Structure formats: C-alpha cells, structure tokens
C-alpha cells in the first residue's frame, strides 16, 4: 500500500471521530504548548540577563575593599581603606598581559543644580579608562582627558537621565552645573544604557575625574577608593588574572602570607555561572514537566488507538482478506497515531508561540522563541506517536483475519 493511501485512510479515520481525536490530541497540545511557552519565556529572561551582565563592561573583574580588623573588632565589607587609585594603576602596569584597562571608582552623592532645575543623583569618580572598561560610549561631546584627571579639574559627563532632568531639550555641552554647590563644567553626555539586572537606572549618574570627586565632593585627603574595575583582554584569563591581581595587591598592601586579604575580587564569570546554573536547573525542571505531560498525552493516544483497533476489527479483517499484509496494517495504525500526535504537536506549537507572545506583551517580559525548541518539541511529539502507537498497531497486525471478520 503506498504512503499517500495510508495517509488518506489515517486522515479519514481521524476525521470521522473529530471530537475524540481532538480530545486525544489535547494531551499533546497542552504539553507542547506549555513547553514552548515556558522555554520562550525562560530563554528570553536568561538572554536578557546575560546581555545586561555584558553591558556592565568588558570581561570585568571588580575589586572591593574587604572588612578590617581593628583590635578584634571587624568592620563590615568595605571597611578597609587600603584600596587606592595607585593600586589600580599598578595593576594595569604590572599585569598588562591580562589587563586591558582599569579604573578606580569613587562614589559621592548630592544635589545637582542647573538654573531653576535641580536633581539628586550619584556622582562616580573614575579614570579616563572608564569608557573602555564599562563598554560605554558618549552620545554628545567629549570625555575628560588625562591632564584634567591628574589636575582634578571640575569637569563632568552626564548620564542621559541627569541630562534630561537638568537640561530638557537644551544642549548641555559647555554649561556649568553645580554639584553640592561646586561648579562643574559639562563636557559630554553618555549614551543611554537602560536599567540593570536589579532595575536600577544606570543613566542616573554623573561621571567626573576620581581625583576631583575625592577632593572636592568627598572633601577627603585620603586616596582610598570605593572599588576598582579591571577589564581583561579575554574572559578565559579570568582565573589567572585574579591570581596575579591578588598577589600584587597583597604585596602592595604588605600583607604577610597568613594574614587575611583586605580586598575582595568578583568577576563576571561567577555571576554568569550562577545564572547558568539557575537556567540549567530550569531546563531540567522543564524537561521533566514536558516529559511527564507528553507521557500522559502519549498514554491517551495509546488508549484511543486501542479503542480504534477494537472498533475497526472487522475493517482490519476485511483489509487482510483482500490482501493487506500484517506490516500494511501495522503501518496503517502507526501512521494514524503519528498523525494524531504531530497534528497535536503542531497545534501545541502554535498555541505555545502565541501564548508566549501574549504573556510577554502583557507582562513586558522578553520572549525568545528559538527554532530549535519548536523543531525539538515537534519531533518529540512525532516520537510519542511512534512509541505509543506501536503497541496498538502491533496488536492490530497480529490479529487473525478470520477472527476479525467474525468479530461483532
């Protein structure tokens, strides 16, 4: 029997019991739709997280001051004041084989005023390498240069949010704003970066030379910094670079081999790994749920196929009597079962994709529908058809034509 004919007979058998076929396929439809939708939402979320992590900068290693132990009393994290801008430049100088750029970060916060507008924001003091380290670009004007940094000039670059709030439609370049009542000249405006993983607006910021922030805004005579951003040439070097940085800082901070480090190193790989392990756990969970729902759907198909074989016993007998071989009958019922499951799978894919889009639109979640998830779930539904259709089909093919023809 040729394939088109087998398909035609199977289609007719399914079409004859429309409601029953639909209810049978529903198990597969729900299973596949759920998988497609949840995978789309999950992959969308993890892609966004990865993107945001990358947006923090190029292969970053972050150095924070650790706690300090003074006569048995320990301060909290960041209590140590031993991390300095000189450490940052030493890292760039000494570990230049791994490190491409580096910037110390000094933080201050305060009220910013331009004419009748004012805005409260944070000011980040950094070095000229900042743009490269954070992989961030200017949208207007220029960044401060090395001499301005060295001399602690009162110049700054505005984040988009700050520029919008102080200047509105006006061009801020060359204007003078007051930060904590100190005049600063605006050199440029940063490109919009959006919010980070924690929902923080990364554009609500003012950048200025760390020297200026330290001296003018913190009124500090010390040279400790809040953190150091180190950018590596390659993410693969992270471990080796961290080891070298650690060794260098220990030496610079005159720490003996047995004393606690007064700094902490954090890198992107750690955060990526955390996200990776969360998403792989999600994948395992989803696969389990999908497997269970498809198993249930498959059992439904097997059940209905057994009913179908019983109902059509006389037809099977007749077909055998006029020349159908056992393998013809086997193929016939397996095709019917595959058809049920793949049509169910297709409907499920459509429902899953539209469902994910709808949820994404309503909740403003990023949705990522990959071809592979569609193809895999479709193939899986076909496999369910083969697997669960095989036993009923085998039973049909093993029937004795005489018994079938006598069956009432």
């Amino acid at each position, binding site marked *: *029997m*040729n394939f088109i*004919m087998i398909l035609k007979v199977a289609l007719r058998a399914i079409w*004859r019991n429309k409601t029953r076929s639909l209810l049978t396929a529903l198990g597969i439809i729900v299973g596949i739709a759920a998988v497609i939708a949840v995978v789309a939402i999950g992959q969308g979320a993890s892609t966004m997280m990865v993107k945001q992590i990358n947006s923090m900068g190029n292969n970053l290693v972050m150095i924070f001051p650790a706690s300090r132990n003074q006569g048995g009393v320990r301060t909290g994290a960041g209590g140590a004041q031993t991390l300095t801008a000189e450490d940052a430049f030493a890292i760039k100088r000494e570990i230049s084989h791994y490190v491409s750029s580096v910037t110390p970060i000094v933080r201050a916060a305060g009220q910013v005023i331009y004419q009748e507008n004012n805005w409260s924001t944070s000011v980040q003091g950094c070095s000229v390498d900042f743009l490269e380290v954070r992989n961030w670009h200017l949208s207007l004007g220029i960044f401060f240069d090395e001499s301005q940094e060295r001399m602690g000039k009162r110049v700054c670059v505005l984040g988009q949010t700050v520029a919008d709030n102080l200047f509105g439609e006006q061009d801020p370049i060359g204007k003078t704003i007051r930060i904590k009542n100190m005049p600063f000249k605006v050199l440029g405006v940063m490109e919009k970066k959006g919010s980070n993983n924690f929902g923080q607006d990364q554009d609500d910021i003012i950048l200025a030379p760390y020297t200026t922030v330290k001296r003018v805004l913190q009124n500090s005579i010390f040279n400790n910094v809040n953190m150091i951003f180190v950018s590596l040439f390659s993410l693969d070097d992270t471990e080796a670079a961290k080891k070298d940085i650690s060794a260098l800082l220990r030496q610079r901070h005159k720490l003996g081999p047995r004393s606690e480090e007064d700094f902490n190193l954090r890198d992107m790989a750690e955060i990526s790994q955390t996200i990776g392990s969360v998403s792989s756990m999600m994948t395992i969970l989803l696969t389990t749920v999908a497997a269970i729902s498809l198993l249930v759907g498959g059992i439904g198909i097997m059940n209905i196929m057994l009913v179908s074989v019983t109902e059509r016993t*006389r*037809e099977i*007998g*007749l*077909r*055998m*009597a*006029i*020349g*159908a*071989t*056992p*393998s*013809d009958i086997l193929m016939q019922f397996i095709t019917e079962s595959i058809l049920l499951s793949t049509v169910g799978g297709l409907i499920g894919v459509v429902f899953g994709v539209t469902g994910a889009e709808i949820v994404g639109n309503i909740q403003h979640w990023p949705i990522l529908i990959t071809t592979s998830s569609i193809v895999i779930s479709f193939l899986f539904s076909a496999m369910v058809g083969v697997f669960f259709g095989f036993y009923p089909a085998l039973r049909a093919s093993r029937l*004795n*034509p*005489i018994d079938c*023809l006598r069956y009432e």
Partner: protein
Amino acid sequence: MLIEVKDLVKSYKVGDMETHALDGVSLTIDNGEFVAIMGASGSGKSTLLNILGCLDVPTSGSYLLDGVQVSGMTRSELAHIRNRKLGFVFQSFNLLARTSALENVELPTFYYKGFPAGERRARATKLLERVGLGSRIMNTPGQLSGGQQQRVAIARALMCSPPVLFADEPTGNLDTKSSVDIMKLFTELNAEGITIVMVTHENDIARYAKRQIVVRDGKIIHGARFESADDPEAHT
C-alpha cells in the same frame, strides 16, 4: 487443477478437549468449476472455505493452489495470495462504511504493488457497470440495498482479476429476489471462466452450482472428487 487439498485437519483445543473441525479432507477443484459446499452448521464447511481461501491455516495436510504449495506460507505470503489469486464475498458484505462504492471496489488494488494507478478508476467503474451499478458508483453502502451492497462486494472481489472467487453464504442476508439476482450474476461470471467456491446451507442456492459437496462432522460425505494420481480411491 486449480485447487488440490489432501488430508486437511483443523483441530481446536478447548481446555483438555481436542475437537476436529476438519478431519482429513481431500478434494480437488478444477478451473472453471462452480462448487457449492453444503452442510449443517458446525459441520466444518466454513472452516474448509476459510482454509481454501487462505484466511486460515490447517493444523496438518497439504494445499496446492494453482500449482503453488500454500501450506507453510507466512502471513505476508498468504496476504499476497489472497490479493492476487482469490476474491472474497461475505455474508455480511464487509464494505467500508461511509466510503463510496467506487472506492470500496478500488480497495484491493492498494495492496497490489505495481497495479497501474491510472487503470484503477477505469477498471472499478467498469466492474460496477458489469454488476449493474453503473449509476451508483458514488453511493456509500448506507445508500444501497443489501443486494446492491453484495454486488459492490462482488465487483471488489473481481478487482484484481483472481481466477477463483470464494463466497461464504453470499445470499444469507438477502431476500429471495436479491438472492436470485446474485446467483444469476455468479452463474454469468462462472460462464466467463471464473471458478466459484460457495458455502451455503440452502438447497435452492446450492442448485445453481454445477457440483455439490456435502460436509458433515469435518468430513466430506458427498462430492469429494479427488484426482491425485497417487490416491485414486478417494473418488466418490
């Protein structure tokens, strides 16, 4: 010689009891014969027809069909034999419901590898015209009378041009008039050279056949002509 069976035995085991549905049947049927197999219910006549029609296999004995040894064939091989060499007409017609007469008649050719697809429709239409249903080829079984349904079944049996037709109580579900029509059709087909082997318990129907065989208790008690050279005594 179209059909030659020798010492056919078909036994069933029910619990510890072994019953013989056929108990050593030997028989030959020539090309072009019209044979009626008669007997009371339970005599084994249907079992004999099923074995001759390759729907069932004997417990022992040999069966030569058109010179081919059929006993010992696999299920697939038997399916091919049924497809090419045999046609079946059943008491309950066994047409596919909600399927047109034309498609019902075409059905055997789908299991006939190499049957020219272009000829399928033309041949089915011609056969339906031959059995007098030329105007009803698109009707489904539900739209046809019993006699008409049986004629569709006969057209289907003839689709792959088999040399022999097996009919199991072909008039069992029909009224007298339709029965006469069907038997006339069989007579015509037989005159055209098709061998017909028919099971019936009605004497009126059996009279249409040229040769009657009577089966009782799994044995042929009348009409078992056996013309194998090595066993001349089986002649009755």
